């Protein structure tokens, strides 16, 4: 069994009970993806599977055979930070940094969802092709990623700036 993680083909020799999160953290040493609740309530473990965001704690690793997974370690390109990572630093979108990898992965997939016109609970016009990246849409769609330090304002500013300038 194998999957692709951050572009690398990775063999999976694991206990079927192992969550994708524990596979990343304990088996591969990819500890950038965080565990905050292990029950899908905090979003700290958010990773991208074929570009879509999931909670890695609610997934068994064996479900992801043949899939392509991107973690926070795979966001930078050729040693340069992803524009969203830079924006998080610029806008102080974190304090302790523990929820940050999940916020980053979640926001990248969210921008893509908006681009594809997927509506949210606060989308006013459901017939529109593209949803707006406005303050309410962004906060609603990011509400699955908790930040106890309360860096929400900075996170929202970083996401707005990154994806307003450069549609995902």
């Amino acid at each position: 069994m194998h999957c692709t993680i951050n572009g690398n083909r990775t063999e999976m020799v694991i206990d079927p009970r192992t969550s994708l999160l524990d596979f990343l953290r304990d088996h591969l040493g990819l500890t950038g993806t965080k565990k905050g609740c292990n029950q899908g309530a905090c979003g700290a473990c958010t990773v991208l599977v074929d570009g879509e965001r999931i909670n890695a704690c609610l997934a068994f690793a064996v479900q992801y055979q043949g899939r392509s997974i991107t973690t926070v370690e795979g966001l930078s390109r050729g040693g340069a930070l992803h524009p969203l990572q830079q924006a998080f630093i610029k806008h102080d979108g974190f304090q302790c940094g523990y929820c940050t990898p999940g916020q980053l992965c979640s926001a990248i997939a969210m921008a893509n969802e908006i681009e594809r016109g997927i509506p949210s609970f606060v989308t006013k016009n459901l017939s529109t092709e593209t949803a707006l990246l406005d303050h309410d849409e962004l906060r609603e769609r990011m509400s699955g990623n908790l930040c106890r330090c309360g860096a929400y304002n900075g996170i929202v500013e970083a996401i707005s700036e990154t994806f307003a300038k450069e549609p995902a």
Partner: protein
Amino acid sequence: MSVLKDTAQKALQTAISFVPDRWLPGAEPDPMRTKHGLIGAPVSRVDGPLKVEGKARFAAEVPYENMAYAALACSTISRGRIAALETAKAEAAPGVLLVMTYRNAPRMAPPPVMNSAPKAAGASDLPVMQDADIHWNGEPVALVLAETQEQADYAKSLIRVTYDLEPAITSFDVAKTRAHPPENILGEPSSIEFGDAEAALNGAAHRVDLMYRTPRYNHNAIELHAATVAWEGDKLTIHDATQMVNSTAWTVAQVFGLKEEQVRVLSPYVGGGFGGKCLWNHQILAAAASKLAGRPVRIALSREEVFRIVGGRTTTEQRVAIGAKPDGTLAALIHTGVAAMTTHNSCPEQFTFPARHLYAADTLKVAQDVADMDMVANTFMRAPGESIGTFALECAVDELAETMQLDPIELRRRIEPEKDPTTGHAFSSRNLIEAYRRGAEKFGWDKRDPTPRARRKGEWLIGMGCATATYPYYRMPGGAARIRLTREGRAIVSTAVHEMGMGTSTVQQQHVAARLGMSFDAVTFEYGDSTLPAGSMAGGSSQTASISATIIAATEALTKELLKLAGNDSPLAGLKPDQVEARNGGLCKRDEPDRFESYASILGRSQRQEVTCEASGPLPLEAQKYSMHSYGAQFCEMRVNMVTGETRVSRFLGSFDTGRILNSMTATSQFKGGIIMGLGLALTEETNFDARFGRIMNPSLAEYHVPVHMDVPRIDVIWNDIPDPHSPLGAHGIGEIGITGVGAAVANAVYNATGKRVRELPITLDKLL
């Protein structure tokens, strides 16, 4: 013992009040308090790139060869004894190395409880897995150690425990009938009274007399409590998530009968603390299991276990009664009440502290009791006491203002004291009214209609409220810092302090660069390791002032040493330390900057590669001589749905008076973080405690509602930036002030919107329908 301590403390305080200013630390204002350069600048976090790449390594992420994984089984009763403990099935399960219970755990001394000794860190002083006695619902009764986490988690499910139940006090209503005053409250008396406050209240022209209730809260830092531990012979290393590396090392050493130096605690990154990341059972149990198994051990609590094993903020019932004279000054101020506590911890939740220092009144009565319960030891959580004490006090002030038909800010102007109401000391720096003035102007307070239900948009009622924020200035004794200055022009500053996201390393790097006249990048700040010079704990908003004082002391020692090394051939020859200042990577004569020699030149001429100096900060006597506190004015605009009772925070502004701000970017984040935790305290958070069985009923982030993105509007924060002449750098710690006053600002805004006074937190929709 504590009577002696109290007497000694009083004697010291009396003596200090007669000490001339020039003998006190901080009495000669720190010249750096008004210098600019990088101090105050919005410098991005030095650990920012690491954190956005997921490369900052937390306690549960430290790898070891041959590591074993721990899982805990916890008690399901509140009080009694273990009658039977079946572990054979678990021991036989695949991958299991051992099952540790009280029968085979190493003999360990109880951890000395916080405040019982200078470095005591125990959250409680109960023995840890040493006998069959159960003290709270959730107490660990067995630890399974296995080759993998999955194997440990499965094996733990095979353990069977039966108990002999004993009567437990799990109802606050029952416990408070036996409430009693604690020996002291963080060294302060549990009650203070001057004049006959009850009589003055009864005779007052205007009065309010109200009861407030606040629930239990949990810190819920997103990083789960975890430790990776390893023994090497009789030396123990703990990679911990902690706010107190030195105290943890000392306390764990007491538990295992070791010398402090035999325990090393490392904690370079902490994924949120808020008072919760201290010494609890799990680190001790992991070390014990590691000792038994002879292997490194990782223990990582589940979210449920964090609720069961790590205490939070306790529940309180508070009475605030205020009597005012026709001119708006106060005849009586009364703040009393009771907090739930245990017989084995030391956290009485100091909710009467704000009333001791905030307002002028002819008579005052503050008194707080504790009610002993059988529960996990409650502990310090962001602004313990002040967060919920200001909820009660500041709601009552708002109600009084309404009774008097006065604007609540105008009322606060009339009750502003000239000196500290209880100690009589002069304020070192108090500009609360200025904070109100600036905050009101920026928030648009003049647009508030004092009549409730006057503003409406569709089905939403809109209201505005304000409240005072306050938190003491603390500086901890006992810290030290070491500066190593190299010929290449680098300064490495080391002290065993903590970074939980406050910006500690960034701010101190700014500080050292300014104080040594060096560039920001030439400074390295080492911390988070108990083998470094002992540092301050990260608590009581004390770390910044404490570290700054030790760095000042180390810099003074360094300056002396450099002048000695410079010798007679230097342009600095013959100068005394107080005649020189640091500039451009060297020292110069203060009033003759051309008499200058660079550090590289001084070291080169004396043929030294580097010079190292270490010094301790002076005792924090400034806080005994002056009344030292931070202040703020919190402004909230709420929208409340008339149909559903849902609440929305539409605007929030905090205007702070906290001495000098050292980094405007990280300070903004800390203030906002405090305010947001305050919004949770006010509106959504509550730990549900089953009064029948003493079990926490919502131990998850799905059922304990911390604020999420959608709950948080854009928040404005502003500050006076007036340096405190008596603190290092003119600064105060700001980790806790942000949460204070928020509960009341929200409740007062809800009242202004709806006409309903909710005096029991959190303000959930059922209370508004």
